[in-house]
């Protein structure tokens, strides 16, 4: 009940934000919503299945580059086509990668995903003719609902139609993920996380379910990556770099991996804190590194842990 009230308030605030808030803060909401989609997927793997990927930026990169290739080379400008294409591209990449990675857990899973992420990064960096090398590629302004919004300046486009489009995608992604984690499938994932042996003996095919979770999280990351590319207007290989993977895991932890909405809060806090810190002090990594160390040592349940102190943590991990 309380969750429903909070959510409706947040939803209303986000609907009204472009009307009341300064343009600058509205544009900051765009990466938040894009990362929100990425993190919902990542947390299916991290919080719900217990696998920490250090190569998730690979799929953010796949999504972003799909958008860039479609808009600049193939003249496909409709976002309604770009997002499914990004999802499809990620699924095609994630099927073999995931099948190989989910054979391992813990640190070996992390290392294998990191290695795959770096393969894609070096591919983007070195195959200049295909990918534009370190300069990357332009992501042209996509059409939304079949409309090019030509009369809008770049900013007006971003804080108007694009904002609401991203919001709609985020809400859909959230609802869908909510269904996924509440479904029998979601319960199986939690069982696998807490006790893989028991899950196996109950007839749950552990590698198969891990693989499904990997695929879903990759698709989410690619959709988020495609959303992320438009405000920047450019995609480059750093999107797929291992530190970017580290940063998205950081965001999940910041919000709280053991809660459904934790990752969304984490994305929000990360984007806005980064902006605040950078405006007063150019070395944001120093501040964020210290913050991450603090969270790891003293507050492993993240920001959500501060709100949910009294209730037992639903998904504590050994």
């Amino acid at each position, binding site marked *: 009940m309380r969750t429903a009230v909070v959510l409706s308030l947040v939803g209303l605030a986000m609907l009204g934000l472009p009307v009341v808030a300064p343009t600058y803060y509205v544009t900051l909401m765009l990466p938040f919503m894009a990362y929100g989609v990425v993190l919902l997927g990542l947390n299916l793997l991290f919080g719900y299945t217990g696998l*920490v990927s250090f190569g998730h930026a690979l799929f953010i990169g796949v999504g972003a580059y799909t958008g860039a290739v479609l808009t600049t080379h193939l003249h496909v400008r409709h976002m309604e086509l770009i997002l499914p294409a990004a999802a499809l591209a990620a699924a095609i990449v994630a099927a073999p990668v995931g099948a190989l990675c989910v054979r391992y857990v813990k640190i070996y899973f992390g290392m294998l995903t990191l*290695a795959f992420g770096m*393969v894609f990064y*070096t591919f983007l960096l*070195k195959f200049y003719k295909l990918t534009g090398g370190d300069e990357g590629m332009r992501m042209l302004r996509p059409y939304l609902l079949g409309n090019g919004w030509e009369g809008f300046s770049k900013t007006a486009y971003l804080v108007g139609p694009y904002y609401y489009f991203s919001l709609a995608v985020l809400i859909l992604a959230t609802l869908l993920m909510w269904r996924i984690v509440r479904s029998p499938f979601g319960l199986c994932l939690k069982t696998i996380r807490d006790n893989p042996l028991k899950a196996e003996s109950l007839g749950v095919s552990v590698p198969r379910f891990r693989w499904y979770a990997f695929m879903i999280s990759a698709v989410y990351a690619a959709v988020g990556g495609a959303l992320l590319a438009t405000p920047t207007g450019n995609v480059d290989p750093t999107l797929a770099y291992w530190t970017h993977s580290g940063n998205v*895991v*950081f965001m999940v932890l910041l919000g709280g991996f053991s809660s459904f909405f934790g990752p969304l809060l984490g994305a929000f806090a990360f984007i806005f804190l980064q902006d605040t810190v950078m405006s007063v002090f150019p070395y944001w990594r120093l501040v964020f590194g210290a913050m*991450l*160390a603090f969270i790891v040592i003293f507050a492993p349940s993240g920001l959500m842990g501060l709100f949910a102190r009294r209730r037992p943590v639903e998904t504590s991990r050994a």
Partner: protein
Amino acid sequence: MTANLVNVLMGGVFHAAILFLVAAGLQVVFGVQKIFNLACGSFYALGAYTGVSAVAYFTGHGGPPALFILPLALGGLAVGLIGVVVERGLLSFVYDRDETFQLLLTFALVLMLEDLIRMTWGTAPVSTGGLYLSYGQARVLGAIVPVYNLIVIAASLAIAVAIGWLLARTAFGRIIRASADNREMAEALGVDMRWIYVRVFTLGTMLGTLGGALVIPATAAMSEMGIELIVEAFAVVVIGGLGSMRGAFVGALVVGVLRSVAISVYPELEMLLIYLIVIAVLLWRPRGLFGAVAA
């Protein structure tokens, strides 16, 4: 033709010598503390910058340029003592946690050290200038190789031997191996783990910072050099096997030489080739070529 080949190989071996030092630091820490230290690349960068500053101070105060390798190595080793602070101040809190949190804590270190380096030394690359060739060049099978590279290769080999001796022949080495094998038993027999951890971690850090200091006359220090090196060191330890010193040695040679060959034959392949090997090793032999037990 041979001259060209020798040139490529010597370049690869020089790189391997540096990689070995960093990877050895990573291995000793992983072997004993079971922490995969992402920050070992940052220590390497820190050593590089400190080396540049130490050499600049030395030559600025009238030190003979021919002896620049002394302040370089000393500076690199001295800054490695930061390992004591890092271990006591951060890592000691998370030994009983899930390894994910340990990994993320070292990632926090990566972030902090990268900006600390930018704050201290700025964003422009720094180097030791022309000192690199002050030991002259030598002819090896028709190829011209800087003598400095040969010194570094020799130093790295000497360190490899010294580590082998330390682990196999000394009381401290036996305690390290025992703790790596069975922490509870070692503790029950009276080993003070705090004492072991702080020393092992500092040793690992010093290997990394020394590696950074030694590489720097041949190149220039940049703030991203740490996060770039960690993925190479990572490849080395995966290929060689996590926790194994012999693995670090062979892995460093494989990565160093292959990279050098790939750059001269087909530059696009460079690191791509290395990562593909890493993936192949992880899939077919997850414990690596020399790893003891699969985790």
